[in-house]
């Protein structure tokens, strides 16, 4: 077999993934912390103030990466949910369900920071424009997935049901992303472009991209931590989990 495929196959085995994720966790957290600190320093201290918005534009360095992550996490969740439903791969169920609370957190931060940004720039905390509304719907979708997952007792069935809901809700993603194009909204359109030239100056841009990188790394760190917990719960009858126990029992006296 192709070595990469073989590795993926191995990664799908719970004990291997548990150890693999455990080994990578500290590194991922460290990378996220360091790059995040660099990005924030660049954004808060180095980048020049915006000529229109003054210093309030510095909210961008939390708002925009979190907004991107809120969409990315949903996409990740739905993709894993699809795999879980079609091929019934246990790890995909776990990854899908682990990304839901992280995505919800990012969505929540997006909404709050957006409001905090909206007050000085638009003069209101909240309006019912399409981008804002669809982002709120996204938060409710995350809540729905999480709620459904916790409301069903059998863990695997719960994961499948919630994954199904995540797939149904994916129609909302293009609405969030293209709402600024399809409807005329208060919210500004795309300023960062990875294909054409960006409409933002480079010394403002690099901290943004650095923070975005940090949040992606953080996403995987948190994902791994949550997936490890879910794996333990799901596999609690297995020998490899029992093998983990004596150490903890000793720790508890």
């Amino acid at each position, binding site marked *: 077999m192709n070595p990469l495929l073989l590795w993926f196959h191995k990664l799908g085995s719970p004990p291997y993934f548990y150890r693999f994720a455990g080994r990578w966790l500290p590194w991922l*957290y460290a990378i996220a912390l360091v790059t995040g600190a660099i990005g*924030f320093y660049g954004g*808060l*201290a180095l980048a020049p*103030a915006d000529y229109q918005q*003054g*210093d*309030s534009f*510095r*909210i961008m360095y*939390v*708002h925009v990466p*979190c907004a991107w992550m809120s969409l990315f996490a949903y996409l990740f969740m739905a993709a894993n949910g699809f795999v879980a439903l079609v091929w019934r791969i246990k790890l995909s169920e776990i990854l899908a369900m682990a990304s839901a*609370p*992280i995505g919800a*957190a*990012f969505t*929540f*931060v997006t909404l*709050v*920071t957006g409001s*905090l*940004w909206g*007050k*000085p720039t638009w003069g209101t905390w909240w309006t019912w424009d399409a981008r804002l509304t669809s982002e709120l719907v996204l938060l409710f979708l995350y809540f729905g997935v999480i709620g459904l997952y916790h409301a069903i007792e059998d863990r695997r069935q719960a994961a499948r049901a919630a994954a199904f809901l995540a797939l149904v809700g994916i129609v909302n993603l293009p609405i969030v992303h293209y709402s600024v194009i399809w409807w005329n909204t208060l919210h500004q359109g795309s300023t960062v472009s990875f294909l054409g030239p960006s409409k933002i100056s480079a010394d403002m841009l690099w901290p943004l991209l650095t923070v975005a990188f940090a949040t992606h790394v*953080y996403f995987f*760190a*948190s994902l791994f*931590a*949550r997936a*490890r*917990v879910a794996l*333990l*719960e799901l596999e*609690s009858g297995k020998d490899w*989990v*029992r093998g*983990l*126990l004596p150490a*903890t*029992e000793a720790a*508890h006296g």
Partner: protein
Amino acid sequence: MADFFAMHGYAAYVWPAYAVFAIALIADAVAPVFAHRRILRDLAGRLRRAASRKSP
């Protein structure tokens, strides 16, 4: 430095935004740590129960 924290009058908007970000992510990072501990503890309890069920 005080200038930096004042953010030219936008401090009331900028810093809460960063604070929310930090709090949300710290909460998100801490939750699995506690859940991990709880599960190992529950599991130890379950094993103890299973052992006591078998012994008498």
